[in-house]
């Protein structure tokens, strides 16, 4: 091998340094392009769903529907509202109480374990929770394929998110405030309802909105527990249709009008989710709360 002189080494180093800087600069232009992979699908979805759904969507589409007017979404919207109201009430109750108990009353070691269970529950596939709902509520409790079975199942799915939000919110209250309340002689209930409430409300509200968004769009928990009906629900123990069912049932229909109905339901869902997302962001920005713990 030819002896490598100092000049060659220096030249090689200079060449590498130039390449290095160039690589850094160009990868700085290249990597941001990957954002396209994430952004284009959303825009495409909004565009296509809108293009298919909006031309034929009228006020009547949203307010009518039933066996005689199959192209209306009202029964589905009513069913979704019924399910979400019950599910939200249950999930918020369970999640709030659980989260506050974890943040306030448990030792740090136990709290770590409980947080692990909450995260584990959040990671369970929705279809598994749906299967549980089918076995427990539809079969074992004997309710049958009714709306409340789907609502409670969805509530179980939503609970860990509210739980986590409440836990996070109460854990983030600064020590000084907490100890000041303790020192002033506050009971736990006074502390929670009067001292901590203004501080934790934005983050808990965000968690609730997030859970709502997840619950509205969730199909697997309701499709195995609720029998669809062509009419709007009359009570918690009736059969019901819901927006995600409309999509599930009609997407393979040979009739274009039915497929359009599926698109309209999907468009509604997409708009609701986007609006919820925007609200969550605005609340987080306005009240400077953390978003990271909620999304995952």
């Amino acid at each position: 091998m030819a002896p490598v002189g100092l000049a060659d080494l220096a030249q090689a180093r200079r060449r590498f340094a130039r390449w290095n800087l160039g690589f850094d600069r160009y990868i700085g232009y290249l990597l941001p392009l990957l954002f396209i992979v994430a952004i284009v699908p959303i825009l495409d979805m909004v565009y296509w769903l809108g293009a298919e759904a909006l031309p034929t969507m009228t006020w009547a589409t949203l307010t009518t529907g039933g066996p005689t007017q199959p192209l209306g979404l009202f029964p589905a919207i009513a069913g979704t509202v019924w399910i979400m109201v019950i599910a939200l009430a249950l999930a918020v109750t369970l999640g709030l109480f659980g989260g506050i108990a974890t943040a306030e009353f448990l030792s740090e070691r136990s709290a770590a374990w409980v947080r692990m269970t909450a995260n584990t529950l959040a990671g369970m596939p929705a279809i598994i929770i749906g299967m549980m709902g089918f076995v427990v509520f539809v079969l074992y409790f004997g309710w049958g394929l009714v709306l409340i079975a789907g609502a409670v199942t969805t509530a179980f799915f939503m609970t860990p998110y509210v739980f986590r939000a409440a836990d996070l919110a109460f854990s983030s209250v600064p020590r000084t405030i907490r100890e000041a309340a303790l020192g002033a002689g506050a009971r736990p209930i006074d502390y929670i309802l009067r001292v901590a409430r203004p501080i934790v409300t934005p983050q808990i509200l965000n968690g609730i909105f997030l859970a709502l968004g997840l619950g509205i769009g969730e199909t697997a928990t309701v499709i195995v527990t609720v029998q669809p009906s062509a009419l709007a629900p009359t009570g918690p123990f009736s059969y019901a249709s819901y927006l995600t069912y409309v999509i599930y049932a009609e997407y393979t229909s040979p009739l274009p009008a039915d497929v359009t109905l599926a698109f309209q339901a999907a468009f509604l869902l997409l708009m609701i989710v986007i609006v919820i997302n925007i609200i969550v962001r605005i609340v987080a920005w306005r009240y400077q709360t953390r978003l990271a713990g909620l999304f995952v």
Partner: protein
Amino acid sequence: MSEPIDPRPATDAETPSSPSPSPPAGRWSGGGGGGSALLHILELLPALVPLAIIVIVLVAMVGTTRGVPFSVLDFLGSSWLVQPPGVAGSSYGVSTFIVGSLVTSLPALLLAMLIALGVAIASVVYLPRIATRFLDPFVDLLAGIPSIVFGLWAFIILRPYFQQSLTPWMAANLGFLPGFAGPVSPTGLGIPITVFILTLMILPISTLLIRDTLRAVPRELWESGLALGATRWEVTRRVSLRYGSRGISSAALLGFSRAIGEAVAVSFLIGGATNFPTNVYSTTNTLSALIIENLDSSFVNPQEFAALAEVGILLTAITLTVNIIARRFVMQLGVHETVV
């Protein structure tokens, strides 16, 4: 003149990477006395709600399989054939579906992690703050879109493209790779489109986790790297990725469990066949799609119902294991525990 002390922490919605807040000293119950034992128990009980739900799930599924004979060999067989009750000849082998789940989730995971790493590095290292504030919410929005909307969009809008352009192109030009030649699915459904949608579903969560992991790298490390003359890429590659490797691994594991558990979108796109995948384009089925397709109708057939419960137990076991391993990693790293 001293500044007034503002007790509110200066949290910023964009940088949630500060260390975990220390637990408030003096928990209420540690104060000693005051209140009956019953009240103390009532205070602590709600915290057990998630555990209770998990227990109910497990009991429900195990209870359904009791009384039905179970043979591991049959279960791991490869034919799933359901005869009406009373007719012999049913077999409930799920190995096809295990393969189906893996062959859709693993490529999606790989693609999603690559893209997520790129997007996260771009966001944390290269892009100016203004661009990040504008673009990051888009990626996070992808996380909230219902899976059925993904399924519908892919089925109606993307499928023709896969059917007429992409898969024939792949078969023609990439046929030299093992498994890439061979008959293309005539409907456009099957593994490729499923992998595409699963990638889109894993992407936002992974991006969020990796982004927060990278932001948790201490400034001193980052700046000392730059001070030594390294480029941003060099510091990222050698310092940040190594520092955040546990967080990135846990992001991958969590994405994997999300992909395996996805039932609705996959059931739209995978074709629902019970045959073993023969090449990259074939239609097959996955564990979770199998459950959601057959659960309601299987109620009349106790054997099939129990078999589906067994599939559910398998799926739960996989998801729980992956989740617990993932969170073990994160807790060791000490990233703000609530990020995950």
